[in-house]
């Protein structure tokens, strides 16, 4: 009985702690959003952060997109061959990428490359008192540092997801049309006929915006909340990657359930 009680109280403690963290993190993000007018007044700050987040992730996004496309093309061809409809491989590759893999995989890659860098950057600025120094110069670090980083991440994500999908389609084309010899006309025309702008592309973009927001929010929060020591920053970076991955996968399930069930 007492064992049960201690377990219950531990569980309660954990729940309260996580709710508390969630509350603190939300307050933090709302504060960042409230101080965001600076990204409109000084767009060069935003561009610099998009450059930072986007360029960091670009190579890994291009390479992974290409490989994912190659694999999708191969697997799709082998499966469709059984039903004698290899011409539909273009559709399969495009839909998988635009609806799912583009937004999800690029968000996971973005979290591990740019998200971790954002957390580390903010954590180091905190550890070396750069944020304190800024406050003492009457410059608000929420506006000057954190808001541009947050919005830079949010806006780069859909662009990166689009590049990922485009590279994936090129990969699928290379393996099925160029290597295996599927008819090029069938590949493109079937793809064009079955990918719907609203239902597929727009929903894919919405997903990547949601993921970008989640990953950027987690990254800046973990950086700002990190314990200001070398060890604290490295732990925060790890938390960014793990929490972002879980958040992206969970959000993807919820969004997919709303977007792609029922209709069609």
């Amino acid at each position, binding site marked *: 009985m007492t064992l049960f009680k201690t377990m219950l109280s531990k569980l309660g403690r954990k729940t309260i702690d996580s709710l508390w963290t969630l509350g603190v993190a939300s307050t933090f993000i709302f504060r960042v959003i409230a101080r965001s007018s600076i990204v409109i007044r000084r767009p060069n700050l935003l561009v610099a952060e998009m450059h930072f987040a986007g360029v960091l992730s670009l190579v890994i996004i291009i390479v992974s997109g290409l490989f994912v496309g190659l694999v999708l093309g191969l697997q799709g061809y082998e499966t469709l061959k059984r039903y004698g409809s290899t011409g539909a491989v273009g559709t399969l590759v495009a839909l998988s990428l635009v609806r799912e893999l583009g937004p999800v995989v690029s968000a996971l890659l973005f979290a591990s490359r740019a998200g971790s860098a954002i957390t580390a950057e903010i954590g*180091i600025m905190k550890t*070396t*008192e*750069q944020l*304190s*120094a800024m*406050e*003492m*110069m*009457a*410059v*608000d670090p929420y506006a*000057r540092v954190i808001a541009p980083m947050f919005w830079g991440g949010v806006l780069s994500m859909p662009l990166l997801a689009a590049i990922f999908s485009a590279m994936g389609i090129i990969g699928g084309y290379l393996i099925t049309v160029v290597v295996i010899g599927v008819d090029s006309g069938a590949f493109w025309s079937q793809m064009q006929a079955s990918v719907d702008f609203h239902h597929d592309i727009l929903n894919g973009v919405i997903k990547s915006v949601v993921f970008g927001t989640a990953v950027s929010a987690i990254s800046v929060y973990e950086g700002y909340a990190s314990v200001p020591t070398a060890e604290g920053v490295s732990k925060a970076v790890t938390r960014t990657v793990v929490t972002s991955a879980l958040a992206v996968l969970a959000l993807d399930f919820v969004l997919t359930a709303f977007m792609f069930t029922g209709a069609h």
Partner: protein
Amino acid sequence: MIKTTDLIQISSLNFSYGESEIFQNLDVGFSAGKVTAIMGGSGSGKTTILKLIGGQVRPQKGRVICDSKVVNHMRHNELFAHRKTIGMLFQFGALFTDLNVFENVAFPLREQTALPDAAIKDLVLLKLHAVGLRGASRLMPAELSGGMARRVALARAIALDPSLMLYDEPFTGLDPISTAITGNLIRTLNDTLGITSVFVTHDIKASFKVADEVVLLSRGCVTARGKPEDLMESTDPLVQQFVNGEVDGPVPFHVRSRSYREDLALVQSENLK
């Protein structure tokens, strides 16, 4: 230990970080137009006093008054206006690592003024010249020695012509020559600009040479405040211990604990038998 003429007056102040109490009923003031040194052991709350003056932390009780305004009651905008009149030198410089020396010093000017680039350039070079580093303006912070970084940070701190300068341990980790240079800079800046300066230090020699007044912190209170020569003469055993750097005295060498005998493992097992 507050005088009515003090620019900064901290009165009956309690401050704690969470559970750990740093100050109980602290009363201290800093004279206008003078250089004051705050001295005290590690962890006695010296940095915390500077943060209280800058409004970065708020006391649980009491008041921090600066230029007859209550800092700990200020709202966001007032606080930022207050901070624009303060220059603070952080213990390790706190330079922005992604900006070069020139851009570090230009940062407060670009953020707080609408000056044209040419004016900013001349102002930055002027400030860098004052700390003797005009020639280093293109270097990145990673390429500077500790002493140089401190001087760049000083140039940045004076960029907006503050009327109050706060220095957190400006001498730690500096060789004797750099210490003398920094001490001189603090003195000359104070006198030529007619500002008020407060610095925190462990360095008895440097602080007694540079400061007009010394404040001694111990156990969350101010033990002594006075001119360096008065503190030298003081008969207070605590002041004596600090000034002469004695290992043991009113500030004990040992952290409070059980008796040594009780702590020893062999003695304990002996007692159990």
